[in-house]
């Protein structure tokens, strides 16, 4: 009995080493870069902002929507931010709201409020790879990319605009992602995400997100001013312009309760 135990222990040890050794370098490097990015966000507590969403089709026709966005940091003292997005124009969608409770190791909880019906609807996990309000962003893309939700692999360093970027391959660990992996470029100076490439289940590059016009808030937290998502399959594009960032509003978790979305519309 003792022998078997010893043998299996030995086996486990060597096996673990065998698997860990070749990848530890790139894995750790990738993970620490992503952790540094997430670290700049720690302690932001809450913020509100406005968002202008421009949907551009193949022929260049643009339709514009405006939203108001609220984010609450880890209300349960665990990982997982809460995000509330509410359309303010055009009139036909005014009040339509999306509530995301980000999760670790599981797919996010997403609720949709249709103001005409005054009803809140919870969305099934798989549907989260679907389009967010007709845009090139999916519900999954607008979540907060929790650190523990990915497996990391550092790929290389390369020049990006005037900066140097670390390129990290991130494989989602939560179920039902629309992507096999994403490739994120972090600038080596401030650890900001500059570009995200999305690869679908067939390892094909389907979308590219460029993040630009970064501004620093509270001397620590970086927020991109412009996010442009290009869909390489459809040729369509969505540009988000973020503005009017305010921090430490004192948002409470009540505002992020799905059952109260209707009542707190105004």
């Amino acid at each position: 009995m003792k022998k078997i135990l010893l043998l299996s222990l030995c086996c486990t040890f060597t096996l673990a080493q065998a698997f860990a050794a070749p990848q530890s370098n790139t894995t750790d490097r990738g993970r620490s870069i992503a952790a540094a990015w997430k670290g700049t966000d720690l302690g932001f507590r809450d913020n509100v902002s406005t968002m202008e969403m421009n949907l551009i089709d193949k022929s260049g026709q643009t339709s514009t929507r405006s939203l108001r966005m609220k984010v609450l940091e880890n209300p349960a003292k665990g990982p997982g931010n809460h995000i509330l997005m509410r359309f303010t124009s055009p009139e036909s969608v005014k009040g339509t709201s999306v509530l995301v409770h980000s999760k670790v190791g599981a797919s996010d909880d997403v609720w949709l409020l249709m103001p005409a019906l005054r009803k809140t609807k919870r969305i099934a996990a798989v549907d989260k790879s679907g389009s967010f309000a007709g845009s090139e962003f999916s519900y999954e893309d607008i979540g907060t990319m929790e650190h523990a939700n990915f497996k990391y692999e550092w790929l290389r360093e390369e020049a990006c605009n005037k900066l140097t970027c670390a390129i990290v391959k991130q494989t989602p660990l939560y179920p039902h992602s629309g992507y096999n992996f994403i490739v994120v470029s972090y600038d080596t100076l401030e650890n900001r995400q500059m570009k995200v490439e999305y690869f679908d289940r067939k390892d094909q590059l389907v979308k590219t997100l460029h993040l630009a016009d970064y501004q620093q808030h509270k001397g620590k937290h970086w927020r991109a001013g412009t996010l442009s998502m290009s869909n390489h399959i459809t040729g369509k594009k969505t540009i988000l312009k973020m503005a009017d960032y305010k921090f430490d509003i004192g948002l409470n978790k009540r505002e992020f309760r799905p059952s109260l979305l209707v009542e707190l519309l105004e």
Partner: protein
Amino acid sequence: MIRHPKRLFRFRRKAAIPAHFWVAITLALAPISQAWAKNEPINYSLSGDMGAQFLTFSDNPAHPDQSNSNPQPSFHLSPRVSMPLPWKLDDGRARITAKPFIRYDSVDPQRSKLDIRELYLFVDQGEWGMRLGVLQEHWGILEGRRLIDVINQIDLVEDPRGKEKLGQPGIHSNILLPDGQLDFYLLLGHRNRTFPGRKGRFRGSSPVVGEATFTSGASARTPSYAVRYGTTQDILDVGVSLFYGLDREPNLILSSSTNTYTPEYRKVGQMGIDIQATLDHIVLKLEALERRGLKKNDNVSAVSTGMEYTFVRSIGAWDIGVLGEYYWQDQGVDAPSSTFDDDFLVGSRITFNDAGDSKLLLGVMIDHRRKDGALSMEYETWLNDGWTLKLSGSMFKTKYDNILSGLKNDDYIKTEFICNF
């Protein structure tokens, strides 16, 4: 939402809002009038919609008094005003919301009306909230039938699918619990269900025009009480509700001398359960109802179940959902025969994810015991930023002479141009 059109036979109106209720509303409005008097600026938000609607029928009407007007045009206006109140609350806020609804119908005078859909004072105090006034509330999760949805009366003449509801006077208080919430309702005054008039479509050979009657010592002023506990546990959303008061669904008593129906409302007590399981690929829904009245025939047991599965981006950017629902009901033999005793709905919801945010809902409701059914569709798209086009319609198929046969000439398409402001 697809709702079975047969419902419209089980059904009239006139609001009974008690006087003390208006006093309360006036008191709530006092701070606004104060601010006005002091010439302080009043913040308010105005939104809402107005629209033109055309009901186009496939056939001439089946019953003698019905109008031949085809299409049947009508107009509506429904502004919504919301105003924060300048009250000093520690950690909360207060506001007042008003949403009247005006419909002018060129054919059926019963359909022309002014209703207060909402007019309430809302106080939000952190873990506790309250609404006082005329309320709208929606319970239930199924697409084709809202079994447990009992707070508001249905405005059936406005929408034959029963999707529109009349404002309900009352008090609603809401308490947040760590993983759920408790809702209490005191509902003051009964609203009678609205029905199409003599000239209107979507009715049987006998219109429901009689004055409402009440059994078991009740009256239009009899209050109703309701409580609901809702909780979210991982993938499950569960709600348990209790209701005691006047049933929203009347018995229809046929008067052979005038050939009209008179609605009769009675006191009932009921318990409802709603459960939604949001799984990875599929959403499963269940609603159950147990109702007890004074007479044996008022007792009802009913269960509705449903599922929805969505194929994300299945054709281009289209999300295609498949939905199926089944409705079962058990009731006393002399009771008004239920139209949902053994029915099912099969449907599809398509979200086009285009610039017009177009959506299509198709459904077939089949009563396989009575061998009849209805095909329904709803389509919605933006014309531009302010205008929405809505198309909806139903086709009715009936084999035997039954409750649905009154509708046999009422296959319709409803075209609506709605301006959102």
